[in-house]
């Protein structure tokens, strides 16, 4: 009996956290989305959201997030796979993670210099006769920097799921005559799909909210939903409209979570059966 109470006691902070920092903030956002600047109850924020300005914003925001996620995955999966093959894989993984420890803002700041008009990339292009190109403040620079920032967060979950993969399954597939591609698409990828999904979750949604990179690298040319929320909360001080955009972001988030959700039963039984 005494052990039961201690067990419950251990769990209290976790449950308090859920109520206070998961449930309450969402409820507050939803509540505030129904108020205008002067504190009157209104549905105008929602009507506003469906004007062409905000719809365009939403679409472009999703397009950028898709591009960023796609390129991150394209680079991260092979990297994670090859990392699991190296001899000191934990050390190499650590080396991949080190850049993610360097402050996000510092890395973004570096690209202001690198992509700048007199920076090394332009010097390089000059050598090949391309002439000076405006790289900073373009869509390209925005996507590139975002991919750069997110790569470690995609590699880590994929590496973890690849590392958990029983190597004898790959040997078995090879012994049974499967080609490298078949082995990859029928054995490796399905068994590591949860890592991929976790990676996509970790990249796609934050991509919608990268207001800092848009400000510093994309020169306010790219406006994401995140930029809009920051604008409404901290500049215009219109918490109601900001909350409304946030409500839609949360809805999108739930949809994405459902799509990339890990089906508990299938996933765990796969793991257990090994």
């Amino acid at each position: 009996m005494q052990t039961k109470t201690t067990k419950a006691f251990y769990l209290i902070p976790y449950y308090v956290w859920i109520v206070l920092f998961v449930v309450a903030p969402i409820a507050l956002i939803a509540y505030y989305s129904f108020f205008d600047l002067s504190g009157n109850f209104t549905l105008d924020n929602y009507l506003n959201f469906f004007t062409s300005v905000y719809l365009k914003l939403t679409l472009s925001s999703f397009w950028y997030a898709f591009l960023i996620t796609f390129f991150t995955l394209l680079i991260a999966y092979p990297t994670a796979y090859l990392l699991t093959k190296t001899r000191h894989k934990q050390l190499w993984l650590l080396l991949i993670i080190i850049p993610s420890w360097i402050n996000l803002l510092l890395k973004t700041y570096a690209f202001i210099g690198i992509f700048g008009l007199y920076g090394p990339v332009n010097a390089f292009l000059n050598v090949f006769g391309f002439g000076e190109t405006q790289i900073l403040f373009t869509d390209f620079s925005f996507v590139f920097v975002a991919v750069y920032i997110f790569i470690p967060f995609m590699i880590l979950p994929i590496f973890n799921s690849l590392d958990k993969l029983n190597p004898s399954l790959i040997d078995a597939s090879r012994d049974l005559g499967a080609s490298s591609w078949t082995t990859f698409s029928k054995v490796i990828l399905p068994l590591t799909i949860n890592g991929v999904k976790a990676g996509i979750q970790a990249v796609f949604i934050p991509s919608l909210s990268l207001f800092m990179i848009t400000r510093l690298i994309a020169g306010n040319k790219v406006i994401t939903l995140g930029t809009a929320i920051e604008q409404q909360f901290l500049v215009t001080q219109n918490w109601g409209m900001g909350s409304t955009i946030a409500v839609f972001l949360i809805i999108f988030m739930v949809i994405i979570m459902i799509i990339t959700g890990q089906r508990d039963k299938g996933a765990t039984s796969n793991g257990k059966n090994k």
Partner: protein
Amino acid sequence: MEKTSKSAKFYLALVFIVLYTPILYLIFYSFNSGGSMNSFESFTWEHYAAVFSDTRLIMILINTVIVALLSALIATIIGVFGSIGIVFMRNKSLRRSILSLNNVLIVSPDVVIGASFLILFTAIGVKLGFASVLISHIAFSIPIVVLMVLPKLQEMNSTLIDAAADLGATKRDILTRVIIPFIKPGIFAGFFMALTYSLDDFAVTFFVTGNGFSTLSVEIYSMARTGITLTINALSGIVFIVTLLLVVGYYFVSQRGKNPVGMGVRK
């Protein structure tokens, strides 16, 4: 065989080069006596001297580290017990809903977290500053810890616990002598991920920081918006060295801790 491993090495090398170039670029120009990141004039320590003579900047650096260590530590403790609670939960639908709630903050956009925490702190009257930043960092680190620890717990064979119980271990013994040692790699991973997230966070902090308190990210953001200052480069040099020392330390600690347990995982 030979061929694939060569192209594999080339690919990995390329990824590493791209990952490290911006950081090394920053550090390289931190020694530039010229005022820009475009042409290197001559070697100088003046930007480092500027960092160390700027007490405000040093305070911000210390604040950042304190918030990161403290929030990661508290989040790890809460998260580990939370995940143990989740794993031993009998009611499956309850467990699933708790897990979904756990993941909300991970998939939530930073801006939404920041905005909603701002509303929350204003509503319950927490003064914006150190407290609000620390609480926010703990809050968004907990689910990361849970996600790092949970797979280790699920990997654990439940017969291990049954065996321990059969041999007369108390619940406390099972926790400290069976479960915790087994999930130690997950706990370490969770702690360091939380540290990473805290050091790296900008958006949430930006919302809840108020006027008096600042972390490195927020400070660099306002510095970078005004243009290129090589003080930021010097700062990044310092941050990089400290990070490297931390990582090397972490590596040796985790290697040492691994041997007795890690042997069990035959690879």
